[in-house]
């Protein structure tokens, strides 16, 4: 009976048996061997921030910040901040651990920490790479390369250069609002779009720009704010509005909250940091590379000194850049269009009205033009590095890569003649249209 049944089936029983054996063997083999790469999530810890400092005993000093798997983290709402608790001996701080090690290379540093801490350190979720300024000024190229080559490192982490030591900076990287540090870090980069005070630089961009013949890299410029810039007020003293923020990160007069400042742009020549742009310049820089989204600009009223008005400026489109080489001199024409919404006018002059608006726009245009031009000039004269990536446009003037590389645009950048043309449209004026003046006994 069974025999006839088997004959009706497609595969003879013998073959099935063989197949079953083979399958079993293969699965067994795979099962025994396949777990080579298997790692449980809790077997690893994930470094969210990597810091690089100059070493004392060894070439570099690497700092990792990893989140702990304890329930609830530590501090809860770190409302007041600035309690100066820079970690106990374990380096534990607000749901994370900060560990520092000296090593000849970054990967070696991971190795050492793996051996001494109890879990594998994985860089696959790194979100921030911090160089100390001192280290960055000596050249980061040697230690960037392994990061790009190493499989684990994410290309999507951001590159930060901090004033002072990277270790100290990372120690101040505490989630203040919540316990979720990863979210905190990611959201802090988002502020680039809202403020324009720093450029959101991905590691991959940094690395590309490093090798690029078209331009030079930049990084986020950061610092630790010790909250010591808030001077005690003296009676009778009143400060005029300071509209141009020429402040380095870490020196912002503020108190409370997170101590880290992402403020400004670190400018590189090749792999060496050569200087920095302040937040204002950074905004002009972002405008001219097309990464500016929106920001508030506070300007002093040209018609009423001591008074200010605030504009919300948004970029309309990417800037149009044209480049040519005329008589051996590279000429670059940059034109860009901005929209501005009036957010506040202290002087109550109705700039939004049609009789004033044209003059107002012209004034703004000249302001932005000057700002951008000054920024470019600063990079040309002071640093001599093309962080604006004008080389991308210049490259169109060369036929082959050889010609272009031979010309070496980066060297010729300071000679370039750059024309900036900005068009500003003042579109809206908030909830008000035409303001009324303030009545008081002292009517002017």
């Amino acid at each position, binding site marked *: 009976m069974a025999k006839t049944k088997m004959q009706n089936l497609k595969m003879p029983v013998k073959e099935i048996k063989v197949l079953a054996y083979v399958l079993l063997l293969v699965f067994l083999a795979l099962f025994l061997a396949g777990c080579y790469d*298997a*790692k449980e*999530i*809790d077997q690893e810890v994930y470094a969210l921030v990597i810091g690089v400092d100059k070493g004392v005993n060894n070439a570099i000093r690497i700092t990792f910040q990893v989140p702990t*798997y304890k329930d609830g983290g530590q501090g809860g709402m770190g409302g007041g901040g600035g309690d100066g608790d820079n970690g106990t001996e374990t380096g534990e701080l607000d749901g994370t651990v900060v560990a520092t090690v000296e090593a000849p290379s970054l990967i070696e540093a991971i190795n050492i920490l793996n051996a001494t801490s109890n879990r594998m350190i994985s860089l696959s*979720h790194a979100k921030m790479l911090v160089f100390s300024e001192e280290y960055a000024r000596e050249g980061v190229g040697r230690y960037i390369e392994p990061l790009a080559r190493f499989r684990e490192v994410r290309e999507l982490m951001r590159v930060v250069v901090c004033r002072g030591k990277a270790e100290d900076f990372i120690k101040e990287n505490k989630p203040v609002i919540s316990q979720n540090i990863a979210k905190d870090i990611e959201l802090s980069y988002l502020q680039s779009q809202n403020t324009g005070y720093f450029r959101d630089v991905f590691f991959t961009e940094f690395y590309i720009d490093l090798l690029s013949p078209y331009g030079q890299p930049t990084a986020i410029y950061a610092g630790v704010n010790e909250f010591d810039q808030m001077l005690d007020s003296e009676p009778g003293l009143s400060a005029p509005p300071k509209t141009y923020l020429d402040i380095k990160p870490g020196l912002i007069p503020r108190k409370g909250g997170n101590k880290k400042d992402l403020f400004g742009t670190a400018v590189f020549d090749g792999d060496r940091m050569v200087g920095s742009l302040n937040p204002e310049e950074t905004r002009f820089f972002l405008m001219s590379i097309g990464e500016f989204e929106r920001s508030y600009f506070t300007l002093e009223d040209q018609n009423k000194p001591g008074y200010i008005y605030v504009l919300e400026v948004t970029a309309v489109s990417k800037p149009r850049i044209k480049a040519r080489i005329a008589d051996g001199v590279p000429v670059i024409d940059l034109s860009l269009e901005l929209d501005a919404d009036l957010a506040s006018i202290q002087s109550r002059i109705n700039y939004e009205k049609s009789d004033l608006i044209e003059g107002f726009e012209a004034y703004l245009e000249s302001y932005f033009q000057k700002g951008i031009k000054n920024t470019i000039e600063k990079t040309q004269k002071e640093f001599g590095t093309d962080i604006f990536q004008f080389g991308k446009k210049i490259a169109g003037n060369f036929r082959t890569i050889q010609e272009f590389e031979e010309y070496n645009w980066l060297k010729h950048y300071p000679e370039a003649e750059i024309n900036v043309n900005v068009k500003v449209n003042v579109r809206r004026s908030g909830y008000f249209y035409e303001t009324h003046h303030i009545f008081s006994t002292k009517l002017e």
Partner: protein
Amino acid sequence: MKKEQSIFAKALNLITYKKTSRPETFVLPETDEKGNMSQNSNSQDKGKGGQDSKTLTQNQDKQNLSGKAGNGADEQRVTGVGLQKRRIPKKPLSPSQVKAAKAAADSEKTDEVKSDYDSNLEAIKQTFHLPENKDLIIREFKIGKKRKAFLCYLDGMADKNIINEYVLSPLLNMPGSVLPEGKSSALDLENIIETNDVKKLKSINKVTAEILKGNTALYVDGLDYILTCESIGFEKRGVETPKSEAIVKGPQEGFSENLRTNISLLRRIIRNKDLVTEFFEIGEQSSTTVAVVYLQNILNPAILNEVRRRLQSIKTDFLLSVGMLEELIEDNPYSIVPTILTTERPDRAAANIMEGRVAIIVDGSPIALIVPVTINALMHSSEDAGLKWYYTTGLRFIRFVAFATAVLLPGFYLALTTFNHEMIPTDLLIAIAKAKENVPFPTIVEVLLMELGFELIREAGVRIPGIIGNTLGIIGALILGEAAVSANIVSPVLIIIVAATGLSNFAIPNYSLAFGVRVLRFYFILAGAFLGFYGLALAAVLLVLMLVNLKSFGIPFLSIVAPRSKKGKDIVIRWPLWLQESRPDFLNPQDRQRQPEITRQWAQEDPNKQVPAPSDSKE
């Protein structure tokens, strides 16, 4: 193979190739794609197919004449069933066949109905093992107080009222004077018996078959035949709502165990003279009736022929249910996914018959098999045609998502958490790590634990009687999950994974496919656990490879994708009904057009046209 073989030779035997004979796979003959409008299209098939259908109709006619409950076999070929079965060339006989042959040889002498009262009575008694067997009732009497006669039936299978009123009473009340003289003179019994179906049978075996169905056999002394009168009447379940395919908007009738009822349910939906029912007897001991229902003017004759071929060639002793038949006629019984659609809904079976498929119904099972089907049919529900087309389409997408979830989610989770951590969003990763911190098991163990636990609950829920079963299943799952989490045996994320998987599994409309999915899930769990995404990808290729090579009665199971056939309008997206102009292309039905280009003709008419009520009194 010799007896004495070294182990090495045996081992070698295992891995070396041995020529095996494979049955030729049946492939639906290709037809011209262009000529899809008329029956003339399949010029290749036409000769064969046409002939087939012709003989078929003849058979059918004969059958209708000769009786309702008869099987397809000819009256003329009076050779016993056993004899026919013995004619199998070459293959060694199975024990059952030998037995059957022996029995046939034994009965050959006695098979013929004698014209002698006592020997016939004895033959019947012997056949049914009287007096041990108490089921067979033999009633002896005299017609017109003159002529000896007996009738016999199986107690419980026959309706006694029918026998009393329409068989016995006319015979007993017949005045003796009407009876012709002479012991062996002919008697016009057909005109005396008042049941609607009578048969004159000259073979004891056939009479036996009739009695087994519940009919009554009548023998009058002197005749050389036995008359069987229809008196089937046994207890049966009425038509109830389908259990596993409940829907809201649509008919609530389900098949029942009675074959006749089931066919009548189909006939009530398709009132068409071309709806043909063929009967096959399967099971040497049980003689289960299997009905094949199809629309003669639509079904591709090649498919019909294949169905007949498979059904007729099945040699087994016993056919209990539709599931057994399914396994016996499936193209590839090793396939993980079913290649035959089962439904307990007459409307669904009817809809499929209308598309050019075949419904196979087994007596005693409230389920119909639909062949051939493609993978999309397993994802459809009978409500689909009744809902608005975009509701249905949305529901189908949900079902496909459910399918993917049920198959892949645990494997995917496993691959993510044991191999590819970088692809989990950091917040989630840290959350998972935190939750997992106190769980002592590796993820694979957690997953298997929970999956097996879930399967356990399901299996137990089926056994636990009544309503408690379902409730206990849900509560059990909840409590077990909750407890497992708080006992740090599994991580909470996993509970979500397993729950979502289980839920998705229930969203799959086809019962057999849902089983297949459960198997596939473990397959992907293993693949994911071994090699992560790489393993999943390899496993997926293997699965697809298996699927594309599946056939359902000659139709590639993945016909909707590969090989490509003309795109239907009711595969994943159910297009509006008025756009579904043709029957599925891959079935090559005789008539592809199901409705004219313009279905809603009123849309083109004058909206103010006066239409009289449709009435019979047209003058």
